[in-house]
Each structure stands twice: as C-alpha cells, then as structure tokens.
C-alpha cells in the first residue's frame, strides 16, 4: 500500500463514517421531536377532553343570588378556571378547578376535583395559555336569551422538558357548557 492509497482510503472512511453519523444524529433528533410532539399532543387532547367533559357536567352554583349569575357560572382568572359540577348519582356537586402555573421552561396545568384530588394534565409543556369567559345576551322571553362559553387559546410544545424540543401546537377553541346554558335560559 502506498501513502497515497492510505490517504484516499482514510478520506473515504472519514466520509462514509461522517455521513453515517450525521444521518444517525438527524434520525435521532427527528425521532425525539416526533416522540415529544406526540406526547404534547396527547397532553393537550387530555386537557381539552377533561375540560369539555367537566363543562358538560357543570351546573350553576345555586348558593349565590340570581343577580350574581356570572359568579355562579364560572370564575375565570389568568391562572385559574373554576366551576361546580355534578359528581355523583344523587346530584351532589363539587368544585372543579383548572390551575395554570406558567414557567420559563414551559408551564404546567393541573385539575383539582373537590378539595384534594389533583392531577397534572400538562407537565412543563405549555408555551402560553389564555382563557376568558364569553357571554351573549339578546332580547327575548323574560330576561332574554343568554349563552356563555369559555374561550381557550393554548400553545403547547416547542420547549419544556430538558433536551426535548417538540413541534409547536396551537389550539384555539370555545367550549359551551350545555347544561349551564340551559339553566341560564330557564331549563334545569
């Protein structure tokens, strides 16, 4: 073997190994991105699923007087949404709260049912979350026709768990609590 042959063989080996390593690293990065994207999508779906189901079961808090119907429907602050919902066959209700804890590395979201049961629905994966109560009142029978809903704007992924960068997923939706709307319009 001549020196030139060794140099050419070495160069080729470096090229082949370099290309293989590069392809492997790209593959690994892409796989991790896909995996963490699936995780944040699943967490986002879990959150909206829980919230939608809770809002279906949500009822107006009858301990408050009728002139405070907005407070009786739902309490919405920048970090928390809370309302009452049916929780057993006997028609008893309990408070359900969704709390958002913003953080630089990605915010988290928890759901608390009653006074003790707390479950983390999104763990350090929220880039931004805003929610607000929407209402519409039009003239009609009695006090008019009323509809309320919860606006949710959620951006998940893109940051969060160390070393895991997922796709950014944006979800904007409005959730209409059917039973509450029926109650507001005079049906139980």
């Amino acid at each position, binding site marked *: *073997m001549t020196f030139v042959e060794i140099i*050419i063989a070495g160069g*080729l080996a470096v090229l*082949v190994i370099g290309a293989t390593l590069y*392809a492997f690293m790209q*593959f690994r990065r*892409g*796989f991790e991105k*896909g995996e963490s*994207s*699936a995780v944040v*999508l699943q967490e*986002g*779906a879990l959150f*909206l699923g829980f919230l*939608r189901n809770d809002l279906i079961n949500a009822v107006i808090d009858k301990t408050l007087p009728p002139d405070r119907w907005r407070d009786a429907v739902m309490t919405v602050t920048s970090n928390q949404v809370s309302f009452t919902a049916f929780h057993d066959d006997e028609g008893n209700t309990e408070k359900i709260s969704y709390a958002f804890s913003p953080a630089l590395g990605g915010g988290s979201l928890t759901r608390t049912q009653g006074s003790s049961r707390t479950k983390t629905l999104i763990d350090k994966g929220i880039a931004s979350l805003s929610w607000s109560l*929407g209402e*519409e009142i*039009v*003239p*009609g029978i009695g006090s008019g*026709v009323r*509809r309320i*809903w919860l*606006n949710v704007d959620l951006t998940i992924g893109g940051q969060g768990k160390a070393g895991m960068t997922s*796709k950014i*997923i944006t*979800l*904007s*939706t*409005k*959730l*209409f*609590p*059917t039973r509450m*709307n*029926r109650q507001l*319009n005079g*049906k139980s």
Partner: protein
Amino acid sequence: MNRETTLRRYGFSLLEILVGVGLLAAIMTPVMFAFGAGSRGIQMTQEEFVAHNAALELLEQLNAVPFALLPAGKFGDAELRDSLPIGSKCPLKFHISQVPDIQRGLEIKELKQGTSLRFKKIEATIVLLDRKGKPTGRTVVLKSLLANETQ
C-alpha cells in the same frame, strides 16, 4: 511480483467501495422514508385533532341555542364566521375560533313525527385543506340531535 499480487487480492478497489456505499444508501433510504411516514402520521393526527375540536365547537354552541331559535338550513364556510348571525330569524351569533387550513360546513334538518316537530339534526363538517387551500380529501363529520322539550 508474488507479493504485489497477494496485496491486490486482499484489498478493495474504489469501484468495490462505491458499490458497497451505494448498496448501503439503497438499504438506508426506505428506513428514512419509514421515519418520514411516522412524522407525517403525527402531523395528520394533529390536524385531525384540530378539525375535531372545530367541529365540536360548532356543535356545542348550536346545542346551547334554544330549540325554537335554531334555524334549519345549510351553511357554507363564508357564513360560519365569528359574529355572523346564526340565521335571519335567530338573534344569536356564531362564535367561531380562527383555525387555519380548514373549511367548515353545517346542515340543520328538522325531523318531524306526524305534524309535530320533534328533533333538529345538526351535522358539522370540517374539510382539511392543504397549504394551497385545496381539500386534502380528509374530512371530520360530527352529528348531534337536539330534542324539542316543549312537546
């Protein structure tokens, strides 16, 4: 002479190495495509999740409209925009989130038993669009039945 022949027999020629690298590339290409399919799968799941939410948003807000005020008819994407009226005789408005790359459709049918109006059937259709705004062929359809509780 003999030594040179022996050395050549045990080495690889450039052509052999190139054929080997080519074969490796040919084997790796389907593996890369398989990975790409996985990524596309996640993307499609995300798009369908967003479309499903858009359909639920449409259905839930119509379920919250009093039965008598819900108009029958077909609504196209241009009529299903935020703050547009639900119908000429309905004082309530649509409340719709801005979602890119989808096209909404809605049909409300009256279902009668004899002469009495018993139900209103609501069908929300979301067509997924590509980046050029053309239908991808994927559609989410959700249906709901609103009962007339005054009868």
